[in-house]
């Protein structure tokens, strides 16, 4: 019984200071020489592995790691030069510094150091555990047993490591990389595409300054992004809900057929249907040609779907209804069917008609249940790249000095700034601000909702 208790203690996660205080000399020494404790407790392979990792890490840091870290402060300063080579009678280019590579290397090294620290801490724990077990006179797990535990009680670590690795390399590292760029002058402006420096918060200041071109554009784009997200979310929500109610009414015939008609349009890949819409709505596209043929608009003229700012804004919102309503229909049908039927029965007894029922039962219930869904949709709409980029591409551009068109959202503007204009630093600032707005917004609304305050109170 006592032994069982001990081994349980060994399995819990002691803090580092605890380990260093109560651990013996072997454990304390292992902080310097990783794996020493394991070796002394007869866990030879494990100890050797830890030691090998430490040696590899130290070698790596001495050979290139410290240098890369040091370069991170200045981001390089040696420009590429032409040197006349007498022997070959040609100009040779010396290898200059490339700030983006220096930044990437530096971040990579920091990640490796963090990773090493994690491994080191795991090593300390395992040494401490081995010592505790040894002291209690119970069995210290062998290497094969450790391997077996990877498929049992340590399964999460086995299964989560590969996905985690890819998330770190392809999601987190790029994000940190871009966030760093927001504090540099990496931009086509001033020709800083090869060598750039840290500039602190200057880019944020530029963007908040309404009088500068970029600043003016930012506020305009931000306002339109919020307007767009609001309308895109709520038009879809109400339209989808009404459609779902119409289809699911008791008296509606061939329900499956109606649902199929609408769902078919979201089964077509979104970029295909958006591109089709775009070509149909061009000045010489199918819609205008047909309107001319019918005689609704005079020959030779066309409706300015994407060439007039107000028209373009309304067009993208309307087409977004076409794109989004089938999804909303699918998602809300289930929730609507969950509304307790006795609420409606009671209302009918009281003599409420269908419109009254909709406003005093359906809507309150739906708002209550679907607030998290609404927040998620709003967030998705702020980041809705596809609809805007594929439909209007941000056009029309009415202010030629600015880099954004009238229907550009923050995300599509970000795309234009980085990919097309190569203003990487400004693009990164826009990305960070989008995140801040979304994070604060969704946190505040979520906290204020009924479904958060009184869970399950309906």
């Amino acid at each position, binding site marked *: 019984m006592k032994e069982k208790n001990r081994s349980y203690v060994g399995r819990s996660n002691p803090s580092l200071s605890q380990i260093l205080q109560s651990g013996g000399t072997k454990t304390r020494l292992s902080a310097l020489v990783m794996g020493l404790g394991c070796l002394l407790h007869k866990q030879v392979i494990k100890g050797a592995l830890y030691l090998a990792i430490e040696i590899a890490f130290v070698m790596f840091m001495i050979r290139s790691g410290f240098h890369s870290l040091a370069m991170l402060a200045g981001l390089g300063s040696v420009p590429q030069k032409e040197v006349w080579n007498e022997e070959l009678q040609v100009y040779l280019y010396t290898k200059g510094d490339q700030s983006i590579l220096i930044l990437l290397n530096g971040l990579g090294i920091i990640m490796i150091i963090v990773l090493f620290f994690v491994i080191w801490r795991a090593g300390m724990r395992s040494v401490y555990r081995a010592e505790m077990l040894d002291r209690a006179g119970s069995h210290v797990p062998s290497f094969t047993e450790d391997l077996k535990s990877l498929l*049992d009680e340590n399964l*999460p670590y086995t299964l989560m490591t590969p996905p985690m690795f890819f998330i770190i390399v*392809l*999601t987190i590292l790029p994000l940190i*990389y871009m966030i760093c760029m927001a504090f540099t002058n990496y931009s086509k402006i001033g020709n800083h595409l090869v060598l750039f420096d840290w500039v602190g918060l200057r880019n944020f200041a530029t963007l908040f300054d309404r009088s500068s071109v970029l600043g003016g554009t930012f506020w305009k784009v931000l306002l339109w992004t919020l307007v767009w997200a609001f309308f895109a979310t709520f038009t879809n929500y109400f339209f989808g809900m009404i459609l779902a109610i119409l289809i699911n009414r008791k008296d509606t015939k061939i329900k499956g057929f109606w649902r199929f008609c609408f769902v078919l349009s979201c089964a*077509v890949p979104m*970029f295909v*249907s958006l591109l089709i819409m775009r070509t149909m709505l061009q000045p010489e596209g199918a819609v205008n040609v047909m309107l001319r043929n019918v005689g609704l608009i005079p020959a030779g003229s066309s409706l300015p779907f994407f060439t007039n700012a107000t028209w373009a804004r309304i067009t993208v919102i309307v087409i977004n209804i076409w794109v989004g309503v089938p999804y909303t229909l699918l998602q809300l049908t289930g929730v609507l069917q969950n509304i307790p039927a006795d609420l409606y029965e009671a209302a009918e007894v009281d003599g409420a008609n269908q419109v009254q029922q909709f406003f005093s039962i359906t809507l309150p219930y739906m708002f209550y*249940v679907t607030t998290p869904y609404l927040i998620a949709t709003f967030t998705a709409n702020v980041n809705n790249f596809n609809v805007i980029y594929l439909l209007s591409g941000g056009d029309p551009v009415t202010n030629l000095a600015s880099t954004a068109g009238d229907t550009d959202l923050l995300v599509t503007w970000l795309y234009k700034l980085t990919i097309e204009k190569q203003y990487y630093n400004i693009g990164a600032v826009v990305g960070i601000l989008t*995140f801040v707005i979304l994070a604060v917004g969704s946190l505040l609304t979520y906290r204020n909702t009924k479904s958060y305050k009184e869970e399950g109170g309906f």
Partner: protein
Amino acid sequence: MNSAKTKRTRNNVIVHIILAVLAVIWLFPIFWVILTSFRAEKGSYVSTFFPKSYTLANYKKLFTDTTILNFPRMFTNTLIIAVFSCILSTFFVLSVAYCLSRLRFKFRKPYMNMAMILGLFPGFMSMVAVYFILKAVGLTEGSLIPLALILCYSGGAALSFQIAKGFFDTIPISIDEAAMIDGCTHWQVFTKITLPLSRPIIIYTILTSFIAPWVDFIFAKVICRANADQYTVAIGLWKMLEKEYIDNWYTCFAAGAVLISIPIAILFLRMQKYYVDGLSGGVKG
């Protein structure tokens, strides 16, 4: 009594008319593409809804005219990328979802919070950085581009575990406990009990991750840049609508769009149910 009945019939007729009109609006663009794909006249500007004459030449051209836009090549590229990224993502999503649903470990909550926070960043923000990173390891040249795209599509897959996790949550935990008492390890529970019980969600995960490379076009464009040999179907279709190609390729674009829409539409209609279940699981909370 009689007036109530006529009122009801009237309401019914109105509702059905509204639904019919809406259905026509929703289906119009789809019919239009299908008609265009069989249209014999060239160019994107037409004066009639129905083509003057019908032909299969557009489909034929798509697969035989490989000089400018090599559609068969793009098709194989996309197929390869889709198969591999689908295997990787399915593995990632299922294992992460299982761990988060069934096992308790220290970084479980932090991981879920991290996934939520990362979801708030605009996905395209880090796209350039991803390109730089892939370039630094030399994956953006020539025949390695498909590998880069596979990594892009499956790398972040483990962050969208919610639907699969919601499904695993519904499997009674007592089954796991019974198996553990009989001496199963967690790994055995996962592979021999949970996975066989989760056929629908496995199919759902496989299909969604298989479809992604066919419909994504932004990432593919940034990674492929000017390497026309490595283009995926989505970039190819986008190219066909650019100014220099649109006159000759517009009807072929419609044909290509129909071709990739048919399988995706079938898959989508079949897995509609899981889609709804997965989402409403999240809504019901």
